[in-house]
């Protein structure tokens, strides 16, 4: 089955155009909420207080507040400098199997009287039945006083097929004793695009030799139904002139395509992804550098006489 192109070149639509460096606009994506002011079953808290803020959310809606007063001397006896946290346990299969979803999306804001947040203000941990296959990541993207949308690719999770719990925690060590920090959590959801979408489009190398034979291109195709294929064209351009191109057809997932290249002049180029006549993603810059192995000009040190 070939999808999307039946809709002309617009299959990638607005979401693709928005798939800029800052990340895609996921607002229209299909989602399954895992944690919010209204999804709190089997939610536990340690060394922190959880409350609901009726109008504290990003759009004026409700939000969960995880409030922490950092205490380097109290808390768990074994770990006075510990990890204040909230955790939600998952029991339903639909909550535990994330493999058909593309991203875990967190909408979070931090409020604190500190001048700035520490480099690692908050952490995400996902437990698997086999503890060794659990996953954790610091959420360095969280900002003081600003709502931030963080997308964690599901493919990065060690075992997305059976996630038994999700924990948001801080490390006391990263804060000073007595600090107060509140994390407003608008929502934590699993998300995926409803329509085919091109993400993380980039040349494999942002700088290549002038005598490179091919330019590898990496990208993710999402929103393509099971068994479906989407088509794309890639072009390398020097100004407005197309100097290399290739065509691609494939399904959901991560891909690598090759653009065949002629000998190139050194200088700046742009790499384009096209769905029909339209740009499917912002163009990427490629710098072409003269090859060190080209014959040396006469008179150069080491040149043939």
């Amino acid at each position, binding site marked *: 089955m070939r999808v999307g192109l039946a809709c002309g070149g617009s299959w990638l639509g607005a979401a693709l155009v928005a798939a800029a460096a800052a990340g895609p606009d996921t607002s229209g994506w299909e989602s399954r909420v895992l944690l919010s002011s209204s999804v709190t079953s089997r939610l536990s808290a340690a060394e922190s207080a959880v409350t609901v803020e009726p109008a504290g959310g990003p759009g004026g809606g409700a939000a969960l507040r995880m409030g922490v007063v950092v205490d*380097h*001397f109290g808390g768990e006896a074994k770990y006075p*400098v510990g990890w204040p946290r909230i955790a939600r346990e998952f029991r339903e299969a639909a909550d535990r199997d994330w493999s058909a979803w593309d991203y875990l999306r967190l909408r979070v804001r931090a409020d604190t009287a500190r001048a700035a947040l520490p480099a690692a203000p908050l952490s995400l941990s996902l437990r698997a039945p086999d503890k060794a296959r659990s996953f954790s990541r610091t959420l360095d993207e969280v900002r003081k006083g600003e709502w931030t949308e963080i997308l964690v690719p599901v493919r990065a999770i060690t075992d997305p097929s059976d996630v038994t719990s999700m924990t948001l925690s801080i490390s006391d060590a990263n804060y*000073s004793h007595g600090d107060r920090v509140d994390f407003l959590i608008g929502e934590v959801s699993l998300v995926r695009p409803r329509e085919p979408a091109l993400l993380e489009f980039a040349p*494999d190398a942002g*700088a290549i030799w002038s005598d490179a034979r091919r330019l*590898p291109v990496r990208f993710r195709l999402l929103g393509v139904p099971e068994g479906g294929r989407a088509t794309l064209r890639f072009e390398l351009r020097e100004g407005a002139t197309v100097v290399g191109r290739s065509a691609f057809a494939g399904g959901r997932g991560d891909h690598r395509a090759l653009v065949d290249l002629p000998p190139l002049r050194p200088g700046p180029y742009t790499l384009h992804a096209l769905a029909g006549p339209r740009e499917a993603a912002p163009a990427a810059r490629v710098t072409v550098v003269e090859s060190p*192995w080209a014959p040396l000009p006469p008179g150069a040190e*080491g040149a043939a006489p």
Partner: protein
Amino acid sequence: MSRRLSCLAAAATGIAAAAAASPQLFDMGTASSSLEPGFTRITAESIVSPGTPSGWETRDGLRAQARVFTNVVTNASRGTEEPPPIWTTPLTEDAVLGSRGNTFILPPLPGSGTVAVVCGTSDAARDQFFDFTVAVGDREQRLRFEGGHQFRVLRFEVPAGPAPVRVRLVPRSLWAVNAILAWSAEDDARVGREFLRRFSDEPGAWAPPDEWAKWKRDPDPAPGPMPEPSAEDRARGFLVFARPWAECVFPHDAPRADEIPPRLRLFATPGEYEPFTFTVRPLRPLSAVRVAVRGLGPLAAGDIDIRRVRYMSARPNYSTMHRWWVAPDVLERFESADLPADINTRFWITVRIPDDAPAGIHTGVVAVAGAQGGVEIPVTLRILPFRLLEDTNRLFGIYYHHPYDRLPGATDEVSRAHFRFRAEREHEDMVAHGTRNVTLSFSTRAADAQGNFRFNGDLLQEKFDLWKRHGFRGPVAMHISAGEVYAKHAGGRYGSHLRGVKDPPESFAREMTAMVRTIEAERVRRGWPEFLYYPVDEPSTDPAAVRFMVTVLRACKEAGVRTYVTADRAHEAFAPMAPHVDVWCMQPFSVDPVTVRREAARGVETWCYPNHISGENNRTPVAGARMTYGFGFRLSGYRALIPWIYSASGGDPMNYLDGPTQDFLNRHEPDGTPVPVTLWEAMREGYDDFRYLHTLDLALERARGDGRPAVRAAAARAEAELAEIAAAIRVQPKYKHDGLWNAAEFDVHRWRIARRILDLESAMGR
């Protein structure tokens, strides 16, 4: 002549003796250690005699050893239960060792057969270098290995005959035998399966079955689609492809379209080492494969080092238990080998450009030859007309288990010579990788009743003699025996990461100051480099630990010295320590460059121990290691890189799954010569990136004093190029796998710097 003597004479002269059944199985050890079922116990007292047709010729110089590891062990320092360094069986838990020549005699086999001699010890034997020869008939094999926890099997073919079988053991230092097995050809499969499998490379052979059942293998990365081999590939039986060395090749990775045909090109400066790699994918089993590099300009055979990448069963993290995968890791010297079908063999070739090599472009070939055919792959090398310059303000160091620390415990001259040889080779290797600094320890007891400290300054002097001979540079992160002083005053140990520390009495701080003053006086007297006093490794953020660190650091500083702490400055829990710390050493580049500079201006240095690219994780962040050592280090503004550790092993050094933690970084050949791993080579390439940058910096500095328009224009081009390259880097606290340049792109950026050096030098008329 007594009957015993006549039996010995018969054995010695090869007179016929009654043949024994096959197999004959002997388990060497003590009288009380476990006996492998079906084996005959052989102790240091088991002498061959008329009634005992199997045994030692003499008991001279024999002793037995036994150490059992069949359960988890307690780590008191960490307060944990851990797996033992190795898992022993009745066969491996014990051994007979000999410091003199001896012969083990056993009855002849019914026909021709095989003798296997299992050699090793289950105790750590850290100060022992085993060097001995085993001979059976007219064939002899030399065996060398350092320390225990490892076992080797030597096999000998034995022809049919009536004479007893004589296994001769000739030590240079000491020999160690766990078992001797002799069997006829028809028992080959059974002996292999039942007794020798545990010494094979088969996954899990090293562990008891119930332990191995807990280990789950992580999948290999997706191999990608296999391309259709050409008729030529099929005829010679293999494909050949080239992937940039900083990108891993896993056993089943399929060649990508852009990796065929391989293109091998490199550029380098005189005195520089430069790697290139290619991979052979056998389409059927290949025999006697050889690799040679020919005709590469001024490079002589000694300038070319050919190795292959050995796949190791490895943990995804050094402390992870019961998960493993197969990772490309050890670069073992390659001469010739049979290659199995459908498993990649990656060849890793490092060339060293002679110091006097003329600039120019040279072409040669890599010849891959097998019994069924071969291929010649063109190689192009450009030698650049300048040398890379060192930035002496930055320090490339490494944690180090110094081989000289084994000298006091070594009991024979061969072992002592070995530890000196290994230290020499390791220092040479470090210098060849840009590393000219190691951590050291100054071990002392707590003060005696008269307030005196006892230490062996002469051993440290020997280390500094070696240091000086290899051009190492200070300051030295010098670990001192704070734990001894603490134990004296607090009445107990503080444990790993100070997990059990309590506030010590005031006398502790006074004695610490006195100890540091004593050490400092010795340092000054002997003319050693500056010491950074390093009392505790990786203190925790626990308030009691931080309080103790304040006490101990303040006490050190009372002696008028600088202090060194392995703690992340970004952790605010460590803030109370700040007034007493001169060098903060942390794993990530977590302090921003502005803060690093501000701290440096007030005399506080920021160092990095990037363990995430030295084996603490899964041993494959090769590109991350290059980025950490080169462009990443440059952007960080940090003063030093000093990862854990040049080489560290627990259990068998070639088994990354045994013991409580995974082994770190480089391995060794039997004689102690270092064997690099991919991460170590990547660190050198990052170091070279750093030197390219520094060489350009110095050229720019010279250009700033030159008002000629051509020079100013070249300088402007260089500044713009540097800014563009910096803008292409995603700055990270830890460079590992994600957000890095493509493996090939590193060289493009290195070349952009090189050409600006050429441009500037040309404009300045040099």
